[in-house]
């Protein structure tokens, strides 16, 4: 219990410091690396909540796929001129004030609590004879009860692949035409 609390505070400080540093860096590559840091902290929190399959998925897919994709596109932008530009938009302080108000509102509702659930109780794990691994539980739910969203997610990924390829495809050499609209 004490180790859980210490680890939670460690990962929470890692996530918060990394995310605050991420949104304030002038160098975009550094911002991406701080995002990777924050995602590692999130994977640690998943491990603390007995979701080890999700921690693995987070590291492999989110860090190893999505942030690497972001770094590829960041490399296409010239970095030296980018570091000389202004960082923040002109209405930055209004945004910070309004977001802080949002956080205060959410915290007030969080601590007052709705009547439907009560806080302050540590989670109760199942008895030792019924423990199945996290991958097995997620797999059983994903392929029996959530089969339709699973298939729709695969169609969503196919659509995203086609869209990204079509939008970022370079035009042909001058003189040739790739699309039939150039005739």
């Amino acid at each position, binding site marked *: 219990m004490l180790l859980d609390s210490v680890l939670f505070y460690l990962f*929470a400080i890692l996530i*918060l410091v990394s995310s605050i540093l991420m949104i304030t860096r002038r160098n975009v590559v550094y911002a991406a690396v701080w*995002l990777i840091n924050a995602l590692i902290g999130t994977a640690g929190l998943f491990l603390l909540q007995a979701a080890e399959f999700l921690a693995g998925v987070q590291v492999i897919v989110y860090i190893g796929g999505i942030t690497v994709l972001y770094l590829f596109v960041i490399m296409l932008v010239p970095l030296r001129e980018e570091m000389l530009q202004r960082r923040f938009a*002109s209405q930055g302080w209004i945004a910070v004030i309004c977001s802080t108000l949002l956080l205060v509102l959410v915290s007030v509702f969080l601590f007052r609590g709705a009547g439907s659930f009560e806080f302050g109780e540590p989670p109760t794990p199942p008895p030792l004879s019924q423990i199945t691994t996290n991958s097995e539980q*997620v797999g059983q*739910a994903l392929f029996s009860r959530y089969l339709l969203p699973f298939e729709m997610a695969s169609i*969503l990924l196919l659509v995203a692949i086609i*869209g990204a390829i079509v939008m970022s495809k370079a035009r042909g050499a001058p003189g040739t035409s790739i699309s039939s609209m150039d005739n």
Partner: protein
Amino acid sequence: MYPVTTAHYLLLSAILLTIGTVGVLTRRNILVILMSIELILNAVNINLVAFSNYLQEVSGQVFVIFVITDAAAEAAVALGILIALFRNKETVHADEVDILRW
């Protein structure tokens, strides 16, 4: 402060959501805006996993898998749009894309 309950995870998720929102609203660089959106999605993931552990129900974790899938698809499409924009306008700043403004 001790012991750590579900409320701590929810408060952390709310703070992370606020940091992501500030990042989306404040920065000029479109890539940092997109990465702040990923921060918001991670805040939601922490929230879902905390509740999934509290209620001993695996549906929250299945939702997290779909959120991660959706984040991947949205990152690919958004970066494709950004590449197309960069090819035409040669800028990655959100306030310099103002051709349609009056």
